[in-house]
Structure formats: C-alpha cells, structure tokens
C-alpha cells in the first residue's frame, strides 16, 4: 500500500467516525420531535408552556401544563448558579492568579475529583445528610427543597465551571498582566480591572455551560428536589424539574399514549433550552475572537 492510499484510508475513517456523532445527533432530534410533536394534537403549545396544572394521567380531565416543571428547572439551576458563580469563579481566580504552583498542583486535581463523584451518590448524600439538615436548620416541614437540590448540583458542577473559567483566565497573555504591573497596579487591581474584564467572555461561557449541565441533570433533582408540580415561590419549597418528571414517569406510562407524547414534548423543551444556551456560548466566543480582546 502506498503512503497516499494509507493517508486516504485514514482520512475516510476519521471522517466516518466524525459523521457518526452527527448522524446520532440528527437521529436523536428526529426521534424526539417525532414522538413529542403529537402532543400538540391534544394540547396547544401555549397551554402546554404556560398551563399550571400537571395531571397527565387524570382519567376525567387530564391537564398538560408544564409551567411548574419549567419553573422548577429554572429555580433549581438559578439557585445552583448563585452558589457556583462566586465560588467557582473565585476558585478559578485563586488557582490561576494567586496560588503558588505547588499549591495549585494539589488543589486543582482535588477540585476536579469532585466532578468524578457519580451524581447518584451526590443525590444520596443530599437525601441522607443535607435534606434532614436543611429541614432542621431552617425549620421547614420537609427537607426536600429547591435549595437542597441547588446545593448538591452546585457541588457536582463546581469543578466543571472552575476548570473552564480557569482556562479562560490562563488564556489571558502574561504581557497584559505585566503591562498592568508596569503602570503601578497591584495584584488585586490587576485581577479585578485587567484580567477579569479581559477573561469575561470566557468566564461567562463557563457559567452558561455550567448552567446548561445543571438544567440537564436528572438524578440529583429526582432524588432531592421533592417533586411537587407547583410553580415555586421560594428556594425552600419542593419543585419538580422537567428532567425529574421525564425520568420518573416514562417507565410507567402507556407507550404511545397522550402522557407518553407529552413527556417527549418536555424533552423538546429541554432540547430547545440547551440549544439556545449553546448558540449563546458560540455567539459570545465569536464576538470574543472578533474583538481580539487580548
């Protein structure tokens, strides 16, 4: 075999492998829409998105309003981000800008290790340790709340946000910091006025991607969010995120029935939300490159 043919074969092989993921993605999208769109034969899109009653199996008068589920997802993710952003970005700044190399070499792997904890273990810890503590500490009737789920989600995805944010900070060239020191700025001023603004697009990408992961997470919210299908009014109430609803109800439902299609339609909503976040990240990155912030 000549070198050229070998190269060709390898090229084709790699293209084929790349195509597999494209085909899988398209396949998933097709199945999702084929199974989910029939839901809109029996519930209008607007009623589906803004209805407050989720009674999909009610014999006499089923209701397919997923507003409580959408709000459940958003409250849990928002709570988790409120915790993750200061701690995660703070940790990234510490690792990238402050810590001595020896310290950094110890701390970074430990933070990353947190992400390797299976989410079901996180859920279990939340259920057995955090939920009773939350109940007693805040004097609540029940410990399975949005807050509980947010804390566990924040713990799970903290490392993810830290490492992407840290990459963004590392990508800021040394010359920028050196210039800042040269005009007399101290370390604090350099971090807050030079490095962070320059790394802002990268750091916001980290936060958005982290948020996307939190929205899609299923196991923790299924175990500790409580599962009440009600639009939340505070972080200390139970909620029923979309992912938990699909996971809990899909196994028992009648395949091909209204409830089944409605669950797939929830999948479409999740898919669209994730897609929007993904496009947002790409827009930020594009802008970032065009403006050549560094």
């Amino acid at each position, binding site marked *: 075999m000549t070198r050229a043919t070998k190269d060709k074969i390898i090229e084709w092989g790699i293209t084929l492998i790349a195509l597999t993921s494209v085909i899988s993605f398209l396949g998933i999208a097709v199945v999702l829409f084929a199974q989910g769109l029939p839901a809109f034969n029996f519930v209008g899109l607007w009623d589906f998105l803004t209805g*407050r*009653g*989720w*009674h*999909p*199996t*009610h*014999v*006499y*008068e089923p*209701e397919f309003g997923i507003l*409580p589920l959408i709000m459940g997802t958003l409250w849990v993710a928002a709570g988790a981000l409120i915790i993750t952003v200061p701690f995660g970005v703070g940790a990234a700044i510490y690792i990238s800008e402050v810590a001595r190399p020896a310290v950094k070499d110890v701390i970074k792997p430990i933070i990353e290790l947190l992400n390797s904890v299976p989410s079901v273990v996180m859920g279990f810890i939340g*259920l057995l340790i955090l*939920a*009773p503590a939350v*109940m007693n500490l805040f004097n609540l*009737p*029940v*410990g*399975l709340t949005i807050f509980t789920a947010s804390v566990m989600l924040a713990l799970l995805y903290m490392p993810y946000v830290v490492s992407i944010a840290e990459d963004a900070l590392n990508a800021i060239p040394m010359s920028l910091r050196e210039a800042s020191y040269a005009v007399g700025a101290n370390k604090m001023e350099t971090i807050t006025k030079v490095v962070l603004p320059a790394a802002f697009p990268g750091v916001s990408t980290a936060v958005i991607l982290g948020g996307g992961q939190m929205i899609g997470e299923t196991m923790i919210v*299924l*175990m500790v969010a*409580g*599962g*009440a*299908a*009600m639009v939340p009014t505070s972080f200390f*109430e*139970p909620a*029923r995120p979309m992912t*938990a609803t699909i*996971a*809990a*109800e*899909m*196994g*028992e*439902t*009648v*395949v*091909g*029935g209204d*409830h089944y299609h409605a669950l797939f339609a929830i999948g479409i909503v999740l898919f669209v939300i994730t897609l929007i976040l993904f496009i947002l990240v790409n827009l930020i990155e594009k802008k970032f490159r065009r403006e050549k912030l560094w």
Partner: protein
Amino acid sequence: MKKSIAVTMAAIFGLMAGLVAAPVAESRERLVLQGSTTVLPITVKHAEEFMKRNPGTEISVRGGGSGAGIKALIEGTIGMAQASRSIRDGEILEAKARGIKVVEHTIAGDALAVIVHPENPVANLTKAQIRDIYLGKTTNWREVGGKDQKIVVTSRDVASGTFKAFNEKILGKEKQRPDALFLASSAAVVGTVTGTPGAIGYVGMGFLRPEIKALHVDGVAATAENLVAGKYPLGRPLFIYTAGEPTGLAKRFLDFIMSPDGQKIVKEAEFVPVGPVK
C-alpha cells in the same frame, strides 16, 4: 504498534460476538419478568423458590414500573409482566395491533397503607379526611386531631399503578393538590415519611416497616385479614400478564405461583393470597 491495535480490535469484536452468541449457546430454560416495583418483592421470592426446585431453569425479575413491563411484554422482549394496575385500553389496542392477546392473571391482593411518621399521634383517619388532605382542604395535623404541624403530602408518580389505585379509591374525579411531593418509588415514599415528622404517604402493604406508622382507615387496620374480610377500604389486586395463554416454562412458573406453595410465599411477603395456602 499497528499490530497491537489490530489485536485489540480483534479482541473487542471477538468479545462482542461472544456476547451476542452467548444466549444461543445457553442450554438453560430462561424466563424474564419485568414490571411493577410493588409486585417485585413477591415475584422475586417466587422465582428464587422455583429455581431451587427446578434446577436448569433461570427466571430473572426486574422492576421499571407496570407500564414498562406491559410495553416489554407487547414488544415480545420478556415472557411475563407483573403489574399493580390492570392493563389500560391503549395498551390492549397496541397489543391487538401486534396480534397479541394479553391475558390477565390475578396472583395476589394488596392493601394500600396510609403511612405517617411514628411520632405522629394520629392513629386513624376516615376516607373523607384522607381525601381532604390530598385535595389540600386540610393542611394542618391539628385539624384531624394531631399536633399543630403542617401536613407534608407525599404521593407516588402520576403514572404509577399505586397512584392510580389510591386516586380511584380516595379522590375519584378530583385532582390531587399540586404541592404534594411526587416520589419516584414506594421506597422513596417510606424514606421521606421516615425522615419527615409532618409527612403522610401511601404504599403497598409489602413496604410497611417499623420506622413508619400505618394509620387505621375508617377504624380498620391495614392487614391481610381485614382485607380478605372486606373490611379494609383500600384494597387492590396485583397481576401477572402474559402474551396469550402461557406455555412451557411460563405456564409452569405461573402454576407454581397459584399453587398452595406459591400462595404461601405471597402470604409470607405480607400480601394477600388469592387461593388456598399450604
């Protein structure tokens, strides 16, 4: 290097081929059951005892829910489905479309126990009181003779057989309050009630533990005797479904379940036998 890749690939493909081929080479008789987690504890015991008595047979039982079991049965991936609810019209239609007649076998009875935290002083609720709690009309234990404590209502998921049975018996046409905690399994209901002093929930009798307290309903305790006597108001049948009349191993297994020995296992698992018990 290239050689080692080739060897690895060959090994992987070999392994895959082996996995695919393995069941074919299997000489044992096999039967797979799937379905309701409520019925699971009984069926698992039946399977263990049956395999002990009939070496060379292999019966595996898994959960996933009544709906998942019936779906798998209609699709032909399992031999029997255990269910805590009767088959729905939509499922019968789908089975018909595939030329399958699903046959129902009632293998046991179950009482839905209404459970609370053991420290809750309330010992009895009427059906009407339970109904008001699940509708959200009653929100404090004080209103039904308990402590001044908010009632935390837990429920099974809307698609579960247990939810359906409870709703039919208690709520009728009404809708459950939206702030009830929907929990994904009976074990999760027991776990939540154990850890929450103000909680109320419902599970099949097989899930009763010392850590939780089962309430009397209309003054009657949730026991097998009271259910058989027709006194306990929250009873329901448990089923096994087969595609057509069972044959071979499936028939032998079902006959065992219905035999006095099999019904003894039902009783030992704290469910209600539907036939004579040895």
